[in-house]
């Protein structure tokens, strides 16, 4: 399983730090496993908890939110909110039955290309170890039991 499993990972990067860091990692030719998709947002605080849940619903195996270091937010305090939300979302996702490590949080500055590569690689490794998300398995099996919607013409 571990040899063949290619995880799907969504990475939300803030425009000012993490995305620039990722960009630099690319220019600097750091090798990163190709199992993640980056979505750029203006600030990590722009990432609504709903989006993270939507990603899991659609079958993401892991979601990473990356922003500026605490104290360095382009919008002064956005990343403080991010980390509070992610902290509570982790305990919520744990209750939903997901491993709390499936939701990652990283602080990466525009210059930390190596950190970006390292963080991503280790996150991908961890998710690969954890295997497919139970929501993805549920979706694949289409095991929704019970009532199914039926449209009636009236």
């Amino acid at each position: 399983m571990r040899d063949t499993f290619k995880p799907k990972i969504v990475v939300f990067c803030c425009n000012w730090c993490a995305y620039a860091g990722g960009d630099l990692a690319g220019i600097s030719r750091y090798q990163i496993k190709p199992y993640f998709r980056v979505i750029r947002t203006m600030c990590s605080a722009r990432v609504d908890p709903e989006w993270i849940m939507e990603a899991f619903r659609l079958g993401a195996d892991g979601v990473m939110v990356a922003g500026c270091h605490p104290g360095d937010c382009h919008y002064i305090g956005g990343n403080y909110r991010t980390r509070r939300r992610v902290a509570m979302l982790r305990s919520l996702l744990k209750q939903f039955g997901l491993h709390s490590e499936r939701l990652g949080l990283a602080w990466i500055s525009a210059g930390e290309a190596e950190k970006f590569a390292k963080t991503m690689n280790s996150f991908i490794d961890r998710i690969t170890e954890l295997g497919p998300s139970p929501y993805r398995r549920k979706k694949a099996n289409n095991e929704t039991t019970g009532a199914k919607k039926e449209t009636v013409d009236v």
Partner: protein
Amino acid sequence: MSEKIKLALAQGATCSGGDIAVLDLDVELLKLFEVVDLTFAPLATDIKFKDVEAMQDGEITICLYHGAVRNSENEHVAKLLRKKSKIMVAYGACAAFGGIPGLANVTTKNKILDTVYNETATTVNPEHTRPQTKYVDPDGHELELPELFEDVKALDDVVDVDYIIGACPPTREMNVQLLQVILDFVNGKAPLPPKGIILASERTLCDECPRKKPEKVIIDEIKSVDYTKLDPEKCFLEQGIMCFGPATRAGCDSKCIKVNMPCRGCMGPTAAVLDHGGSMLSAFTSILKVSGTETEIPEEEIEKLMEKIRDPLGTLYRFTLPKSLLKRVVKE
């Protein structure tokens, strides 16, 4: 006006609060019965499924279905009444979003049956008897029981729904409005409103909250309603009480707030939001107070701060778990 229209009050997985909410119309009931014939209403009339099955399709003008859909009988009632009714209304939080029964999605069907038929302190069941969907007694009579589903669903997951009315239960004011909508339609004064959520505001409860609005809300300490003396004028969040106002649709006339109780979210989310709990989570976490400068606080301390909120899933999705993005709890 020529003929009376037909009204049905169908029940799913419900506490019958929906029926009582209709009864709460009191004197307005007379107006209702001037234009309405009560047909299928198991709590009030003696009618069997076969009587409904004998009706023509669309014969019932309006059906108020209350309760979630969680077993084959609920599903049968929903589908049958959908076929026989012109207008299907998901009436109340359970039919609209799954409601309190929807919290059964945190566990599985087997675990529920184990708890009920084995594990509670007062249960004596050495043979581990479980309800069967079919049973033939020694005399050859065949008995049937509905099958419990794995997932609890809202009404519109099962059938096409015309109108959704939230709240637990729908308030008297909402019922009076609904009655007016029916009256206007019957008398040909006004067409029916477009499909969707009706009798509610497009804004959040905070928008119409009668309490004093503070400039900035900060929660010093998370408190529990049962151990706190609540100030009737001050914002609940400011008092450290989890109030769902910021994430919940208005239209309930701030009933709970007026009797000094925080909002629990029975009106569901606003149209702009995909997930009620996620929306509340985001509002709530942002206003928790931390000591000192936030820059210096290590991540662990933030996690500890958030752990103070007990049972986030049960609190955030008290009424809307089957309508949330993730819908149910899974196993890793």
